[in-house]
């Protein structure tokens, strides 16, 4: 999560005070990302140092100090908005590693391990979905954040479902050694 760019986005609508930025940051993320005051001010300092924002020059920690975005800052913000985050490298997903490891442990049924995680993830999805129930109080920002969480969790559950299906069909054998380097070569990602 780039606090720096989120603050630039807030300032793009007009000059603001530090305390105001903190409030608006939390509101703009559906109140799910609390931010402490120190973090706001240290980030603002860095932005000012790099010429992406300007202040009115009052004392550094004064709550009355106001900030505005510079043209440099606007350029940086636009560039950031349009740059895809790095999703290319296969993440070292802890859950994937747990499932792969479970396949190697003789006394563990890997499908039971999968079910433990599946249940946990569905329970998490239930909690997020409950936030949707009261549609009247459900603002747009929160709706987008909740959807993002639900789709993220859902994608993991889908993977677990697919893994469970594969395991049902396959007899778990140690991998044939020659296929391992081949697979590794295939999923190498250029940086």
């Amino acid at each position: 999560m780039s606090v720096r760019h989120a603050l630039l986005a807030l300032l793009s609508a007009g000059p603001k005070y530090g305390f105001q930025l903190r409030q608006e940051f939390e509101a703009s993320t559906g109140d799910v990302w609390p931010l402490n005051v120190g973090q706001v001010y240290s980030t603002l300092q860095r932005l000012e140092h790099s010429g992406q924002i300007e202040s009115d020059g009052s004392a550094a920690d004064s709550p009355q100090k106001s900030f505005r975005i510079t043209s440099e800052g606007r350029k940086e913000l636009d560039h950031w908005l349009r740059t895809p985050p790095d999703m290319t490298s296969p993440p070292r997903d802890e859950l994937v590693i747990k499932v792969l490891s479970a396949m190697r442990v003789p006394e563990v049924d890997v499908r039971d391990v999968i079910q433990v995680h599946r249940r946990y993830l569905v329970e998490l999805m239930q909690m997020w979905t409950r936030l949707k129930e009261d549609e009247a109080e459900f603002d747009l920002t929160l709706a987008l954040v909740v959807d993002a969480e639900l789709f993220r969790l859902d994608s993991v559950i889908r993977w677990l479902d697919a893994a469970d299906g594969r395991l049902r069909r396959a007899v778990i054998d140690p991998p044939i050694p020659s296929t391992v380097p081949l697979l590794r070569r295939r999923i190498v990602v250029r940086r």
Partner: protein
Amino acid sequence: MFQDFNLLAGLTAVENVSLPLELDGVPAKKAHAAGMAALEELGLADLATRYPDELSGGERQRASIARAVVGERHLLLADEPSGALDSTNGEAVMRMILAACKRGVAAVVVTHDAHLASWAERVVFLRDGRVVDQTVTPPSPESLLATAPKP
């Protein structure tokens, strides 16, 4: 609630939806009003006088859902109720089922979709045709926000 909708081709959407009420002996006028209300809830009020073959797949599905939830039922069985629907309409269906539950209806939904399942109070997991697990009642959403990741 049927996966392949089972709407009667010779009846309009609203006639399809109010049919179960009429079969229960509800007067035609009252049944029609209840049918219209159910269609309206699923955003189909404008299409009430169309026949099933004049509706899209998703609209047919919503009409069949309206038919299932209309009237005073005690039990609602739904097999993949949001199969042909986009996520917005899928959510509308689950809200409708949830509203029925709040009126005292028991609903059993069978689905592969975790989004749908997460609307339920209790999720029971089947594996190879057997019940293997179920969720425990989740704590309130507030506790979720308290543990949300820091930026």
